[in-house]
């Protein structure tokens, strides 16, 4: 039960990463595995994490909204901000 929970937590951690953070972690993992200084068990875990990160990054890239939101000095928009809609 505990192992499954840990896996889910990991997934949530990754899905909260920004693209920049994810790429950084991914680069680190690839380097670590390529250098080979890491024990087999750990490398399997890291490999899994790396694949999850790649999936996450690709997911971010696929999201294209292609629209612009307008903001200005309007007090109307300021109100919207405090309500957290931007």
């Amino acid at each position, binding site marked *: 039960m505990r192992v499954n929970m840990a896996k889910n937590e990991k997934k949530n951690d990754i899905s909260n990463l*920004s*693209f*920049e953070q994810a*790429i950084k972690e*991914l*680069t680190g*993992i*690839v380097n670590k*595995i*390529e250098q*080979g200084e890491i024990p*087999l068990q750990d*490398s*399997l875990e890291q*490999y899994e994490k*790396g*694949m999850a990160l*790649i999936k996450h*990054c*690709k997911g*971010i*890239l*696929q*999201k*294209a*909204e*292609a*629209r*612009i*939101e*307008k*903001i*200005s*000095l309007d007090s109307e928009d*300021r109100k919207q*901000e*405090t309500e*957290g809609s*931007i």
Partner: protein
Amino acid sequence: MQRKTSSVKIYTVSEINGLIKEVLENSLPSRLTVSGQITDWKLHHSGHCYFSLKDENSVLPCVIWRSNFEDVKFKPESGLAVLAVGSIELYVPHGRYKFIVDELIPAGVGALQLAFEQMVKKLRAEGLFDEAHKKPIPRYPERIGILTSESGAALHDITHSIWTRWPCVKLFLYPVPVQGDGAAEQIAAAIRDLNQRNKKLRLDVLIVGRGGGSQDDLWEFNKEVLARAIYDSQIPIISAVGHEVDVTVADLVADARASTPTKAGEEAVPDMQEVLADLSNKENRLWHKMKGRVELAGQSLETTLASAVFRNPLLMVRNRELDLDELCVTLSDSVKNAVARAKESLHWAYEQIVRIEPHRLLAGRMLGLNELRNRTVAAMKAVFNNRQIQLTAMANRLAGLNPKSVLGRGYSITMKKQTHSVLRSLAEIEVGDSLITELAGENFVESQVTKK
């Protein structure tokens, strides 16, 4: 001598000056352009500027009224060669004429260009263009703010260039005027506004831009107020102003410059295709490397399984059994040896003892013992006999002393019956007491005292 009534006209000072003024102003074109070098430039606190124009031989006093000076875009200073446009006027009360200038044009370089160069020099000296101050543009921005005209072509160029490269980014438009008076102030205010609200807005980078135009059209992007707002911005700013050849002060202050709005995308966001290729590349590297490692691990396992230990696991046990047997043999051998040695020493001891001929010694001792015994017995017998004799003698003596022996001679013993005590005197008895008399042979007679 006669006093002539002459027709010589006598003028007052004012009249003369007034005449000169008329002549001067009528004979000269109402507007002149004069070329010369500025000297004695003085900005009066009233806002009017007093100066002179000179050439090698002559000096012309000038003034620019404050209202006209405001239109002068560059900073006039002594030594600058200019074209001055205006009109000559004579101020009657002072009797002096001045060239009233309403337009100053720097000779050689255009006014705007000169003003631009002066502004660049000034701001560079203050460090506004320093590389060290420029903030890095985030590599993978998620939210970008665009400051440009809502209706201009630049907006489309910017958004298109961004979306073709990196469609996953969110764009925000903050409409601003991009030319005309006050545009610089409004853009500056917009930048400050966005900075203030950025905790909520979370913009990663701003793009300030407009399409191409003349130096005049772009002039607002050279204004100091905008430059300072860009310098002070905490959010990194990319400037995307005009065409490639147009460089504005804003371009120099900004953290990055896109030479035109269409190039804004290249500065602001990465190329998605490149990033996808990089991701695929990483994916492959990971996969191949892992495959390699797993294969290697598998090989190493196989090698281990193929080794003698796994092929013939009992080998070790057999070897140990052999060792054990050998040890057992060694053990029993050594025990046997020990026993044999013990036997030997025992035998040797026996021999030693035999050599001593203990039986002979014993026999000898036995003789001696017997002798002693015999002597002891004899001695004991002798002693016993002795004692026996002594005893007999004593017994005889005693028997002789036995008081009861006299009884045989007729004597008797008289006792009181009550006490069985021997009578020795009359006092011991009374008349009537019973008496026992013992005669020889243990015979007793009982009697009574009748008289004493």
